[in-house]
Structure formats: C-alpha cells, structure tokens
C-alpha cells in the first residue's frame, strides 16, 4: 500500500532527515511516521513547518513510499536514492573507492 512520509534537509549541514512519530527528525527513513491519509499528511507537514520556523530543517515535503512486509520502500528511483543517503555509484573505481560497502 502506498503511504506518505515527511522528509526534509537539516538547515545547518544539509543532511536528509525524516519526520518521526514523535515529531522529531531521524537520519533513517525507516523511523518515519507513516501517513495514511490527507489529514495525517497535512498535520505532519504542519508539524514540519514549525521546525522550519525553528531553523531545524528546510524544504519539507511529502514523499511516497510503499509499505511492505520488509518495511517501508521508496516508491520512485529518486526517493530510493535519497533514502539510501548515498549515490548509487559502484565502488570499484574512482573517487568513491572504498567509500561505499558492496
């Protein structure tokens, strides 16, 4: 089933973060608060807006995910890459050598 989560970037360092059920921010998308309808999504975005004003995060938006038995899975290539917090570049050569496992 397709659900939504709120994600943003941390203001100070730009790191990707995810809004949790406690309305705090986690660097792991798996900690996300799962939003199942429009009312929940709006409320979560509103909560994120407070943290924008508090200078914690920038650019919060709703990202689509799928709920699976293995947990949340991003619904698009873009969100998959973003959720992984790293480029998908293969590590055998060049500047990323040794920086990404497997």
């Amino acid at each position: 089933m397709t659900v939504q989560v709120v994600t943003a970037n941390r203001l100070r360092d730009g790191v990707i973060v995810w809004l949790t059920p406690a309305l705090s921010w986690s660097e792991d998308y798996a900690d996300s608060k799962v939003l199942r309808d429009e009312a929940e999504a709006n409320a979560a975005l509103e909560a994120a807006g407070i943290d924008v004003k508090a200078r914690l995060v920038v650019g919060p938006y709703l990202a689509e995910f799928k709920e699976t038995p293995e947990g949340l899975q991003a619904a698009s290539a873009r969100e998959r890459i973003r959720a992984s917090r790293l480029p998908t570049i293969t590590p055998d050569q060049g500047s990323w050598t040794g920086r990404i496992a497997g």
Partner: protein
Amino acid sequence: MYRYDEFDATFVAERVKQFRGQVTRRLAGELAEDEFRPLRLQNGVYLQLHAYMLRIAIPYGELSSKKLRKLAFIARRYDKGFGHFTTRQNIQFNWPELVDVPDILDHLAEVEMHAIQTSGNCIRNVTADHFAGAAADEVADPRPYAEILRQWSSVHPEFSFLPRKFKIAVTGAERDRAAIQTHDIGLHLKKNAAGELGFAVYVGGGQGRTPMVAKKIRDFLPEADLLSYCTAILRVYNLYGRRDNKYKARIKILVMELGEKRFREEVEAEFPRTVHPTAELDSKELERISAYFAPPSFETLPKISGVFEQAKLDNAAFAKWARVNLAPHRVDGYGIVNISLKPAGGIPGDATAEQMRVVADLARRYSFDEVRVSHHQNLVLPHVKRDDVFTIWKVLDANGLATANLGLAGDIIACPGLDYCTLATARSIPVAQAISRRFADLERQHEIGPLKINISGCINACGHHHVGHIGILGLDKKGEEFYQITLGGSSSESASIGTILGPGFAGHEVADAIDTIIKTYLGLRHDGETFLDAYRRLGPKPFKEALYAAPQR
C-alpha cells in the same frame, strides 16, 4: 594568468564577509529560507538531493598549482575527499555543510577564487578553449577577452536580473573546442583580411529542452566593439526576453521567435546607442589585461624530442596514450598533455584530493604552473616539454590519471544526474560507468576512433547529450528511469543537434544498445571515416534497424 588587483581582492573579501553574516542571520532566524535562498545561490550554494552543493567558478577553466592545491585542501577538509569538474569548466563539491561555507569561501579568496555568479539569472562563468595560449592552430589567445568579459559581467548592475541564465564562450581557433555554438553568445576570435583581430559573433545557441545551434549575427566585429556589442545583445534580450515562462526565457527562444534577421536588426539598432566610455574596449586596457596572459618563457627546442620518441618505442602503453592524449603545441618541442578523468568504470569529472595535488605538482614542475579544466571534464597541462612527457606520464599512471582514451568511447561526458541532483529525472553516472566498463579495452576504443558519448540525467542537458555523437538522456517514467538515445550531435565548428533514434531503454540495456550502434558503425564505415562522418553519410536508418528490428535486442 590574471592576478587580482586591490579592487578584485577587496570585492571578493567583502562578499565573503557579507555571506558569513547572511549565514549567521539565517541560523539565528533573522532570515527566512525564502530570503536566504537567493543569497546562498548568488554565492554558489545549492541544496541538492543529499546535501548542500558548492559550485566554484574557474574562469575560462584556468588554474594555477596553488589554486588546485587549495581545491584539494577543501575536498579533504570540508568534503568527502574529492571534487567534480563540470561541463562548464567549474568544480562542484557535493557534501559541504552550510555552516562551513563561509570558511571555504575565505580559503578560496586567499587564492583569488570565488563562487559568485555560478547560479542565478546572470552572466555565468565565461568559458574558453582549454588549449588557449597553447594550441598549434590558434589565431590569437582568447583568454584576455574572456577575462575582460568576466570583469565586465561581474555584478553588472544592468545584467544581474536577466530573464534567465546567460553563458558566453570564446575560442581563438578555427577548430572549436569551446562549443561556442551551444552558448547564449559564442565568440570566435579571428583575423580579417587586413590582419586585424575581431570576432565572429554567434547568438542563441543552447541545449536544454529546446536545443538550438547558435546563429551567426556578425561575421567580423572589431575587437574594440566587444563590450558595446555584447551590451547591445544583452539589452535586446533583457528587454524582449520572456519572463512569463521559465522554459521560454533563454535568448535562444527570443532569437527563434524574432527570427535571425529581425534579432540582428534589433542588435544593430541598439549597438550605436551603447557606445559609452566604459563599454569601449580601449587598447591600453586590452594591453594591460593581455600582459597577464603573456606566453611563458619557452625554450628554443628542436621539433623532435629524442627522449619522447625513444620512450614511445620502448613503452607501448605510453605510445598509445601519447597518440590520443598529447596535442600539438604552437611552440616546437612542447606538447599539450590531456589528463583523462575517465578511468574505465570511473565517474566522469571526479578527481580525488590526492589526484588534484599530483596534478598541481606536475603543473608547477613541468607546465609553467598552469592547469586547465576542459568542458569535457578533463584536466590539461598546457605547456609541457616533449622531453618531459614520459616522466609526467609515469606519475599520472601511478595515480590513475593516465587513461589513454581522450576523445574516445571511454571519454564520456556525464552530469551528476539523479545520484546527486535534485532536478534530475534519472541517473547518469552508473550509465556512464557501465558504458565505460563495456569499452574498457583500450585497443577497441582506439580502433573505434573519435567518439563523443554524452549523458544527461534530465532535459536540462548539463551532460550535453544533444551534441554528443551519441547522446543519452535519462528520463522518468512513472518513478522509474529510462534512457533515450540520440545520434549525430556535435559541439564542434560543424555543430549539430542529435536525432532521437526511437523508443527508450532501461538503464541496464543502455550499454548493450551503444555496443550495437558502434558495431553497426564499424561494419559500415569507410576507410578512416569517423563515427560522426559515417552517421552524417548514412543517416539513422541502419542504426535504427540494428537496434530495434534485429533479434539481438
């Protein structure tokens, strides 16, 4: 190389100070993101897919060893140990923290660098032939003019809020290595019959969703009129350029909508009105700027270097590299060394901090302290004694910088794509890596011959796919990536826009498709015929048939 005067140094230092204040106020809540965003963009700070990105201007791609060493330092201290050289001769750092950016800019100011006008609807970094001042076929050095344009366009009050971004490129040779016909203004420095210098002026080239080859609106503009004429072009654009639709706001759309003739008339009508003491390029100022680009003190050397010729006989790998990576220099006994940033399976344009240091040291020792960045995302040592080339090659080889593929299938241009870029619709780098691995056999690359494969991760075309001999465009279909292939593009003096071949491919199919295209070419080419020439002779039909009709797909 140009050196900052007191005015430049003060100006850049003040901008850093202002930005430091702006970051402080942003973090303190005195500036909201809406207010801060344009300020950070004016200083080259983007917010990308994973993190902030800092784009640093490298005017006309020229670096000294000190500047390159500083970039290496920034990569190590503030980033993940590498930087990405772009198709606009700039460098991008992909992982800086916002709070560190003012310090990074301070470091850059120390070596006369900055990130001003690397974003926004202004005149961006002026680019030039990366062989400027060195190429054997050069008529005159384009760098003094590029520097004058840089100074003229820096925070130009009239041209800081254009309808859209604006890119100028300059070349001083008949053979166009600066892709001037895909720029908003392209300038071809040349001599007239009387031996005077001037410019052929091209306007309205560009890529993106409406790719256009520029129109030549003047065959010979006297050099003194350079700034007046550019002012006239910019004024016509500023007045008539569309501001209602971002996608129709570039000057290419205006040139198309008005038509070449009408656009030229408008510029020629504006031109006499722009004559102004500050707009005329007086010979004293040109002389003053040109002095910064005086040729280094070349030695008088024999044309043939015995050391170099012997090394080629002794070392096949070196001979192979020298055949494609070493370009002819205008001075006997010298050569231009091209350093490929495209190792097999590598990431086009990426260099580690260590590699930057190695190149900086080589430049200091062997190339009169000069390094260039090419829009092909490679580095260049412009003035190297042929006697030293083998020694340099050994150092490059030991540092993963001696791939013998310049201008060949492995020398792929690729934008950062969806791995980094928030505008991207698909990844570019993994596709480049897959193709690069497929053609890792240098023997085969040399057999295929000159070939430009360009990959963009979205229609904005930072990877120049429209002008690749083979262009690849990554798109999004319901959240999944797929890739369109175009053939027949070129950014040279015979510029052309590639033609879409047919339905797109999934990411894992692209390398196979390119392989099929190249095999088709090899089967049909005449003796010594390049891929582009063969395509221009044959058209898309045989390639289409091979890709879509045959069972091998």
